């Protein structure tokens, strides 16, 4: 029983990371038709910025805030500098993000080395607590809590604000939004900022979860982010939330109860099976 609890909470923690990556990917794709291959780079930027701040005695909450801010700025710069000039050329937009996705991890490993750097986990989060007989690491709760806060904030933003309304309408029909006299490009920058913030937060929390940061973390989390986005339906935040829980749990349990690595495979098999049954994903549309 205690193993099941531990695996369940660890799976949810992993799912929380996937959600933070996938929610931004999903919004950016839904609104702009851009598959952001630089999203892993944004995560890594957040991870290294958080790690740097935490190693310079910022204190973990402040370090996380710093990392998220740096990632947000990087995302806005990416949208304004590289994605926007290629407006109306979606394939080139994807290619430009591919270039950034290659260059940024290389730059990070040039500066801080290709090997993993130990993340200074604060003592308050390093311990465990007992739940139903299982001793569960505290950091798992931090991850799940952060994902829930982001989910709630996104739902409030999308449901209650005018900018959120523009984003939801733009996911459906971008041209019609402009035909109502709304400059939809402002919403593009906004979703990049939101996606970048969530990805950078995921980067900082990944440092906590794995106990280290390395340049390739972003890339591997990005791939599972893609899986979650496809399963949840492109452009759907709620779909991503459901899919990340499923993916995180399946991965953890399968990795534990069979050989390591089979969990990762079973996630992909699950994706294939889902696409065979329902080509449009769990909820929304698929381009």
């Amino acid at each position, binding site marked *: 029983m205690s193993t099941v609890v531990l695996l369940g909470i660890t799976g949810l923690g992993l799912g929380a990371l996937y959600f933070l990556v996938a929610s931004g990917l999903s919004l950016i794709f839904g609104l702009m038709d851009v598959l952001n291959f630089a999203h892993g780079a944004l995560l890594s930027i957040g991870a290294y910025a958080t790690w740097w701040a935490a190693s310079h005695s910022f204190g973990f909450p402040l370090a996380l805030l710093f990392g998220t801010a740096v990632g947000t700025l990087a995302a806005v710069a990416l949208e304004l500098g590289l994605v926007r000039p290629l407006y109306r050329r979606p394939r080139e937009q994807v290619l430009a993000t591919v270039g950034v996705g290659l260059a940024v991890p290389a730059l990070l490993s040039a500066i801080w080395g290709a090997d993993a750097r130990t993340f200074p986990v604060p003592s308050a989060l390093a311990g465990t607590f007992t739940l139903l007989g299982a001793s569960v690491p505290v950091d798992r709760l931090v991850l799940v809590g952060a994902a829930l806060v982001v989910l709630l904030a996104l739902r409030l933003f999308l449901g209650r604000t005018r900018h959120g309304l523009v984003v*939801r309408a733009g996911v*459906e*029909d971008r041209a019609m*939004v*402009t*035909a*109502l006299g709304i*400059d939809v490009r402002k919403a593009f920058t906004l979703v990049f900022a939101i996606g970048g913030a969530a990805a950078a937060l995921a980067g900082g929390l990944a440092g906590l979860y794995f106990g280290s940061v390395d340049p390739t973390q972003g890339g591997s989390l990005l791939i599972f982010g893609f899986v979650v986005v496809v399963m949840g339906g492109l452009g759907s935040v709620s779909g991503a939330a459901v899919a990340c829980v499923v993916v995180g749990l399946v991965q953890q349990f399968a990795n534990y109860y069979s050989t390591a690595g089979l969990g990762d495979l079973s996630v992909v098999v699950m994706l294939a099976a889902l696409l065979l049954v329902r080509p449009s994903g769990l909820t929304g549309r698929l381009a």
Partner: protein
Amino acid sequence: MTSPVLSVRGLKVVTGGRHILHGVDLDVAPAGVTALLGRNGAGKTTTVRGILGLVPRTGSVRYGGDETVTMTTHQIVRRGIGYVPEDRGVFAALTVAENLRLAERDPDPAYGLVHELFPELRQRARQAAGTLSGGQQQMVAIGRVLLNRGNRLIIADEPTKGLAPRVVTEVAVALERAAQAVPVLLVEQNLALVRRLADHCVVLADGRTAHAGPAAELLADAGKSRTLLGVGRRVDAPAPASGGES
């Protein structure tokens, strides 16, 4: 005609390597309804989309003293254009109230007028627009335009297409009301409606302007309206729903 509110000269649209418009000229009168007519595929919808910058275009479109052919869609629309698109363009996942709220540009939107003309929209405010009937969706699309008192031109692309006769009447009343205050460019296949509403008309054929003049004159001339608008259409009865157009 006194100086037109919108003046199009030599409008050309090329999409996917194909010429859709070869050079459209049209003026929208400063008051009343100007009808844009033509057979299916003549380029009516493309003309409207070209005026609004929704498709890449060349030529000249003068509106409110500005050349708009170099502007983006939202810049053009913000100069005071209300647009009812061909496919209604309501956001299916948004509620009726959200659809209307998204369209607000004035500080004091005219909800009174919208709810007076379409009381159903008030009752269904919290319903997702995708679950409405076609007629109700058209009311949302027209309501979005009527909200903004600052409009100086309304462009409606086949607002009665595929609607039940009762709803056609409601839409016609709304357009009539709107036209009292703001000039309207109306794309329409239903000639009974054109007869009732339009003062002027412009006829397109094969992506070019084929005729322009008073609407009554064209509709009175059976031979001319038959060659320009299509064969054997009865002009008194509400026209049946027509098929799609490029």
